[in-house]
């Protein structure tokens, strides 16, 4: 009896772990999916914006002594600006160049930013001193048997869901959102209809980067580990999540993030922790090969 109870609370705990991880993946995946939807580019540097978000918040809180929530808002704004700058200096000049050129630029930017962070902050893992953060984060919000949910996890989930909802509203209820959808369908026609295409693309970068930066802060808090290469693996997994959900679709990113997070945690918990990262790669490859439109995405044609 006892072991059965243990088994079920083990599963419940793993589910909680997986959903939290999935929420974070979803936040990053949104940035990939939106940019891809609008300019059909895998923005490899997105993972680095996530990493910068984590570092910026960390620096503001520990070095400048800002209260956590102020740093949270400020970091998101900086990341949004950063996304716009990235687009303007790196991608915009290549808008009409072959796609290979933009893709290589994206990889180059990603490596550049990662090493820039390495130069500024060093390669050691940074952690928040516990006394700096709000105490409530470390208290248990809810527990059942052996399974627990901390307030920090609640905070992450709430932030994820709320920001996704806001994003959904922006895309479907505002003028700029309509413009974004138009640009993603047909850039040239949108331009002819009077939409300022570059402005819309910059806005997309801003929103995507803000979400990415936010994910960075949350992950920095959750695992309490901030380091220059953190964007690389998380970025690829989030991309896998975006692909799984159907690239270009925001609800898809959320669904994909959730499924991938749970799959990874359950895989690591029940199958083999050695191949944990392989689970995301394998899922990504399988989806691209067999169902490139993802779970709820639109079909991608020969020349998407």
């Amino acid at each position: 009896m006892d072991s059965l109870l243990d088994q079920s609370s083990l599963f419940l705990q793993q589910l909680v772990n997986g959903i939290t991880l999935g929420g974070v993946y979803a936040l990053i995946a949104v940035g990939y999916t939106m940019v891809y939807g609008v300019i059909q580019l895998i923005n490899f540097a997105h993972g680095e914006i996530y990493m910068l978000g984590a570092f910026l918040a960390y620096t503001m809180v520990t070095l400048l002594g800002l209260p956590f929530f102020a740093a949270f808002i400020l970091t998101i704004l900086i990341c949004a600006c950063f996304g716009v700058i990235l687009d303007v200096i790196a991608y915009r000049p290549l808008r009409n160049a072959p796609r290979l050129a933009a893709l290589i630029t994206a990889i180059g930017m990603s490596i550049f930013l990662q090493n820039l962070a390495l130069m500024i902050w060093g390669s050691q893992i940074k952690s928040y001193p516990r006394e700096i953060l709000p105490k409530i984060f470390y208290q248990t919000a809810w527990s059942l048997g052996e399974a627990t949910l901390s307030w920090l996890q609640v905070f992450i989930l709430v932030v994820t869901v709320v920001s996704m909802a806001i994003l959904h509203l922006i895309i479907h209820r505002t003028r700029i959102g309509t413009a974004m959808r138009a640009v993603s369908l047909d850039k040239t026609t949108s331009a002819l209809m009077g939409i300022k295409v570059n402005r819309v693309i910059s806005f997309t970068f801003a929103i995507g980067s803000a979400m990415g930066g936010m994910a960075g802060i949350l992950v920095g808090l959750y695992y309490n580990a901030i380091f220059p290469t953190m964007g690389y693996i998380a970025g690829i997994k989030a991309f896998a999540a975006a692909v799984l959900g159907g690239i270009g679709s925001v609800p898809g990113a959320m669904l994909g993030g959730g499924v991938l997070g749970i799959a990874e945690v359950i895989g690591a918990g029940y199958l083999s922790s050695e191949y944990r990262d392989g689970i995301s790669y394998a899922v990504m490859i399988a989806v691209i090969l067999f169902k490139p439109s993802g779970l709820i995405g639109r079909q991608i044609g020969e020349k998407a």
Partner: protein
Amino acid sequence: MKRTALFMLVASVFLSGVAWADSTIKIPVAAAFTGQLASFGEGIKNAAILRGEEINADGGINGKKVQIVLEDELCDPKEAATVATKLANDPEVSIVIGHLCSSASLAALPIYRDAKLPAISPASTNVNIGKMSPFYFRNVYKDDFQGLFLARYAKLARGFDTVAVFYEVNDYSMGLMTAFMKEAKKLGIKVLGTEAYTSDTTDFKPQLTKFKMMKPDAIFIPGYAPQGTLIMSQARALGMKNVAFFGADGLDDDLMLKNPDAEGLFVTTPFLPDKAGPQAAGFIAAYKKKYGKEPNWFAANAYDGVGLAAQAIATVGEDRVKIRDYLASLNSKKKAYKGVAGNTYFDANGDCLKDAFVKEIRNGRWVSAEKQLQ
């Protein structure tokens, strides 16, 4: 223009090799001074520089000044091989102190062997290293000894009956785990489960959740400090309040002290300031004065390594093969080099047998554990 640039390039590579022609003795120290494991390299760097200054203050070796040259290889086997080639082909180099990580040592070792250049590693504990080259020595114990020691200590001094092992997928961690499990079986410690992580893992919760349900007395982390500190925090956050944690010398890092969840952690170490003999007192005081903190075991071994190299050069001169033969001749307790981290003498493989100590974190500071095992 490109042709000129190319020429300049080749010329600069070439010039950098011959720039230092002086009446000094070069002792290169190859380890990771930047990168993730830089905090390990720091102790090595500090102590080597300290020893170099002390030797020079005493008049150098046979009247020549010692110059400590730092070579950064980031613990990357490829970088280690390039650095090793550079050193092997430098006629002024007659002995190397290095490398730090075992994988770097394994990559550098064939190059030193071919160049007949002796090297003393202050920190590579992988079991295989010694057998592979007659020119590679180390003044640190091997993983099989350390793992065995930990198993005995866990059972005999702490009375653990059930243990879970959380290892990193690398040579160091897996070598330790294998040795630990072998001895644990003999002693009747039940290993409830083993789980893996990699150096870029930050989410340890799925594996820890599994351990939580197994309810072991203790979790053994044969890994490095950057991950070790995260594991302990995440375990506490999952509500694992009563389980004990222990590790090996990879967790012996001041990084652990910043983490309030690491309270009670105990680790093996080759060197303990307050258990070291009287010969170490001067070193500890000088190190504290110069760097403002206590030396760790990396520092102690590097200090001894430079000292041993200096003694060898003073005795037989700057000939590579003669230095090797001299080091190999230190093969019994009587002939041992008496350093700050105990006596160093080598077996036929160039490995050495040293004592291990246990230290633990109490009130946010490293202190030697009350129970030691000899």
